[in-house]
């Protein structure tokens, strides 16, 4: 988040779902809106190492016009900065942060005009009160019951290998500096209600107590919004992360996906027999309704339940394979790639499934993303035994045909793709058509029949071929002579060359390994 954005605006775009939820709601999870867009080029969805779930309403929030503040608010702000109200133990930046948050929350909940600003506590006083509460009773905010010494490390583990290696060598990694301040602060409940787990954190005060408090609050966030009225969390202490798998006891078949921010609650986790029924239900629903947004969400929670219970068996493989195929069919490559990455790990443990089918997809996928380093790894994974498999052999042939520019072979392979590989090949077939046209226009003079293009480049009809050519070039390139349409290759010049270069820009897909 850029610091140049005025704080009122910045928060609007960062603000995310939880504040909007009434605390009396009873679902045991936060129903984050599932992604509906299938546009795979847009990195709009959370990746496995992403930080927050995208809230579908946030773009609208960001577009909100600037709020005009009523006079009481202004005078409140003035009083905040008055020297006589200063509290020595509360830093100025800390106070401002709090103030920003108070106002933002008020503005977002539409209470700018209803709050009695003259009587509202000043932010510095709020901070002090909160601190006193925490210090007086450190366990009061412990929602999870047990403490989890390992969780901060876990939360950042995925990132550490990359972000932390920034050679600029700053002591605290970038995400620490920027994120936790506004993002997590804003997620906490409305400040005037005086929630006890609402603590202002100062980066500069390095006390461990602060970190501890933040962690607890963070832990609480995932759970207490959802089920304040269900069984008291203290009665059912969740196991520590490293203490081993959770054993679920939720009988419900369906469950929305929510990214975990704390140890999972066994009450909301479904055990294996339930999950098996869930899969059957999902398969039926997918066939009948074909609602991808719903299915994807359900599969993600299914996968999550498997993970937290450390279930790794043939069923796990089956779940990932089915989700991968569905994602593939819908062109959701981000999700597909997540499954593919996990499947690679699972296949390595020889748990069954269809490793060769997915090895073939993996190769096709890397052709599409043009990730040669990963391709090299994928090739290294292929055994002599795998090569006998039709799908693997096909994928390898596709790769080598492209590497050598043999478009003739490439397109005859395209027309004869096993399994669901065609969904993947569709992703890059137009790109390769342009490459082929660039070569054809350079090599053939003065012209070729459009029929030749249709056959060589795997089009369904001459019309489709002609349309494709026209989309990328100008009508002068096509000429009708004695009843046949010809492509004037001699006149194409660099047209297709440029289109090819444009199409071959590196594909960027989030969630890629």
């Amino acid at each position, binding site marked *: 988040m850029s610091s140049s954005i005025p704080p009122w605006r910045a928060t609007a775009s960062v603000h995310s779902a939880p504040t909007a939820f009434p605390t009396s709601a009873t679902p045991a999870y936060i129903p984050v809106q599932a992604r509906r867009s299938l546009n795979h080029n847009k990195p709009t969805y959370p990746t496995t190492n992403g930080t927050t779930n995208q809230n579908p309403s946030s773009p609208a929030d960001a577009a909100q016009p600037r709020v005009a503040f009523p006079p009481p608010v202004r005078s409140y702000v003035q009083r905040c900065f008055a020297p006589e109200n200063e509290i020595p133990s509360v830093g100025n930046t800390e106070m401002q942060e709090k103030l920003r948050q108070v106002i933002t929350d008020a503005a977002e909940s539409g209470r700018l005009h209803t709050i009695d600003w003259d009587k509202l506590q000043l932010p510095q006083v709020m901070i002090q009160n909160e601190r006193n509460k925490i210090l007086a009773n450190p366990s009061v905010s412990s929602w999870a019951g047990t403490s989890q010494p390992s969780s901060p490390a876990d939360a950042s583990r995925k990132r550490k290998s990359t972000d932390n290696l920034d050679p600029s060598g700053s002591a605290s990694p970038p995400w620490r500096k920027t994120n936790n301040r506004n993002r997590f602060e804003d997620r906490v409940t409305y400040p005037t209600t005086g929630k006890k787990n609402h603590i202002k954190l100062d980066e500069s005060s390095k006390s461990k107590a602060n970190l501890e408090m933040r962690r607890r609050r963070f832990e609480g966030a995932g759970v207490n919004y959802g089920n304040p009225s269900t069984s008291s969390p203290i009665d059912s202490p969740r196991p520590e*992360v490293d203490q081993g798998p959770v054993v679920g006891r939720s009988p419900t078949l369906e469950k929305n996906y929510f990214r975990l921010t704390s140890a999972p609650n066994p009450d909301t986790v479904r055990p294996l027999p339930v999950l098996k029924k869930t899969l059957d239900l999902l398969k039926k629903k997918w066939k009948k309704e074909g609602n991808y947004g719903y299915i994807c969400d359900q599969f993600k929670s299914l996968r999550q339940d*498997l993970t937290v219970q450390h279930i790794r068996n043939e069923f796990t493989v089956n779940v990932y394979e089915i989700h991968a195929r569905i994602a593939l069919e819908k062109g959701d490559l981000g999700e597909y790639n997540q499954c593919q990455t996990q499947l690679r790990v699972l296949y390595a443990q020889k748990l069954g499934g269809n490793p060769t089918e997915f090895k073939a997809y993996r190769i096709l996928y890397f052709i599409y993303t043009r990730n040669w380093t990963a391709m090299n790894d994928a090739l290294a994974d292929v055994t002599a035994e795998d090569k006998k498999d039709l799908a693997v052999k096909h994928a390898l042939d596709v790769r080598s045909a492209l590497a050598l520019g043999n478009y003739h072979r490439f397109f005859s392979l395209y027309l004869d793709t096993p399994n669901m590989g065609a969904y993947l090949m569709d992703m890059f077939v137009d790109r390769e058509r342009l490459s082929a046209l660039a070569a054809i226009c350079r090599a053939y003079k003065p012209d070729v029949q459009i029929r030749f293009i249709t056959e060589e480049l795997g089009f369904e009809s001459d019309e489709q071929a002609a349309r494709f050519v026209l989309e990328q070039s100008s009508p002068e390139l096509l000429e009708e002579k004695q009843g046949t349409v010809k492509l004037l290759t001699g006149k194409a010049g660099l047209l297709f060359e440029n289109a090819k270069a444009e199409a071959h820009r590196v594909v960027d897909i989030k969630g890629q390994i």
Partner: protein
Amino acid sequence: MFDLDSRAISVSASQANRVRLTMSGTLLNDFIAAHLYESGPRLATVFTPDIYNDNLQTFHELFEPIGLPDDLRDKVFLPNKKQLKVSKAEQKVWVEVFVEYWKAVNELFMYQNRQPGASAVVIFNAWKKFVNVLIRGYSSPSSFPAWTLPCLYISGKYLRVFAIKADAEVVSQGSASFGFQDDLAADFEKNGNLEEAARIMNRMFTLCLSDRAPIEDSRKWGIYNTTNLLFKTYFKINSVGLTKNLLRAINAQSHDLPRLEAFPKSHIVTFEYYVGVIHFLDENYIEAEKHLTSAWRMCHRQALKNRELILTYLIPCHLVTTHTLPSPRLLAQFPRLEEFFRPLSNCIRKGDLVGFDRAMTAGEEEFVKRRIYLPLERGRDIALRNLFRKVFIAGGFEEAKDGQPPIRRTRVPVAEFAAALRIGTHATARTRVDTDEVECLLANLIYKGLMKGYIARERGIVVLSKNNSAFPGTGV
């Protein structure tokens, strides 16, 4: 890894008189001598954890952490107060360094003797502490002088070694822990210790790059050594992408760095090699060739292993950029490379496609492992070019016109190229290439500039360029 400075290996008799050497623990004597001569390499020997070194064993037996501070004061710093230019603050850090060093060494001996509680992970953690104290010695205001850098190098070198051992131990014990991931743990944990080591090395890197002391006494001289160490580590943990950050940081500072040539060759050769390979993996073969060539030129004649590594990537580079093959004389020096490249080269020269494919399949595993499969594959185009060139030459000459020198026949039917392919590939009816595919292959060669001319499809002929330029660079 570092050059021994022979200048400072022994203390001459006259100096020995002036310096109060202690009888116990020659490691400490080395420490004194290193400071006296400001010899980094000699200092590095002090901190080389070679458990078979008698001096190290003596050091380990004679001292223990509690007594070490007093011992160092009484035996090293006090007696040589006048000769050693080591400030009080610096002394304090050196004492800490020795204490942590002793502890790490102790773990090494415990591991060696298979004592309970000893493990590779414990060694790594102890060594990590030692390195951290050492780094502190460089980052504090009364910093260790730049001549002591080899000491940092050696600590980093072993940090990497111990981390790899620790990771192997973790993997063999199979203690995979689950975090809050939605999905199953991927394989990112199997390099946990090495990743941690990389972060520490990164601090060394920053330490060197950001030193603002005058260049004569700057840690900037350590920049390439630490960079190489990180390169090596990133390659090992399969995070080649991270190397870009280092290169970017170095580039941003380049105006403050001495010229590349001013650094020790041992640093530069390795650096250029890695930069070359990084470009190579990005399929940026022209840049790769530049850096690899520079590494090749500077590489020590007798460093066969290194020269072989450089050539492993430089040869495929040449094949892609200039379509040249390694000479038999060059390959003869490197049996392993000869095994890799000789069959391929021969097939490319002869235009033997079947042989080429066979050689690629035979070497596939090794090629993929070394990440040279993809560029080598492009050699097939050259083999094909050579085959088609034979067709062209076999086509002979047009009838000479009134005394003019004979001109080669430049209109060649596609069918002739197809025939050549059929002969070359021993095609059966099932696998035979059809005319369209032959045209496709021809079109590709033309497109890539390996052949000059065009295909007239309606007439089924290839019209090749006259004036000895049908196959550029091959004399016809």
